[in-house]
């Protein structure tokens, strides 16, 4: 049973999660975002935001994102191109957590590595979500 994201404390570490950028998923993603530029770099290239989106999704599989959560900001750094079929792993940590007027504001740092443990991407996600009324403060 995944933990509620808003209940997690600063410093919480998300376990490393492996994920696969299958060609089928990458094509579905590129179609969904209508990326007309990535194909010009070679047909096996993965749009960089696909790596960010899939790593965030992989991390949040271990924590339930409350309904009503809102994405406030996103920082991403890319260190090398990623190709279709690659297997990557994402790890994350809650860098900060605050509460204000019934809402939690959380910053989550993430790191994505390839199978050789070389850094592929880092990021920081800022998200706000309603505070569960029955929950004590963990700021």
């Amino acid at each position, binding site marked *: 049973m995944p933990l509620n994201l808003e209940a997690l404390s600063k410093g919480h570490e998300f376990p490393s999660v492996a994920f696969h950028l299958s060609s089928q*998923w990458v094509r*579905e*993603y590129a*179609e*969904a*975002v*209508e*990326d*007309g*530029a*990535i194909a*010009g*770099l070679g047909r096996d*290239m993965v*749009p*960089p*935001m*696909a790596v*960010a*989106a*899939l790593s*965030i*999704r992989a991390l949040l599989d271990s924590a339930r*994102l409350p*309904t*009503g*959560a*809102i*994405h*406030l*900001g*996103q*920082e*991403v*750094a*890319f*260190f*090398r*191109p*990623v190709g279709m079929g690659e297997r990557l792993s994402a790890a994350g940590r809650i860098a900060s957590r605050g509460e204000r007027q019934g809402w939690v504001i959380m910053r989550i740092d993430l790191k994505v590595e390839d199978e050789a443990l070389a850094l592929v991407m880092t990021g920081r996600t800022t998200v706000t979500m309603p505070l569960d009324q029955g929950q004590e403060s963990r700021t």
Partner: protein
Amino acid sequence: MTEQFDREAGPKVGGELSSVAKVLTQEKIDRYARAGGDGNPLHTDPEFAAQSQFGGTIAHGMLVLAYLSEMMTAAFGSRWLSSSRIKARFRTAARPGDTVTASGRVERTENGRTFCTVECRNQHGEVLLSAKAEVVA
């Protein structure tokens, strides 16, 4: 749209990046939700979203950011994929029916990096997303 693009050197300092425009629909948001695995009902459930502070469904921030990333890929090619950074803030929600236009400008080149100011606006001129981006020069 102003284009000052050299395929080898990329856009010049002071130059505008070639803009990218997309028309958002609920179907596109639903498709992104399926691909991105984000089933937050704020994006996909009109009844739920109608009761929220937004009064209706909104697009995923990462979908709007993907439009901006497409613009950067078109402007900087493989450099955007291999050594780049972006810091984005989502300012206003993008909604079905919106025309989202990504645009940007090269601000400076310093220490081997090119720095850009980039943003996405809707058809009313409201800023949906603003960001600072950099890429290896």
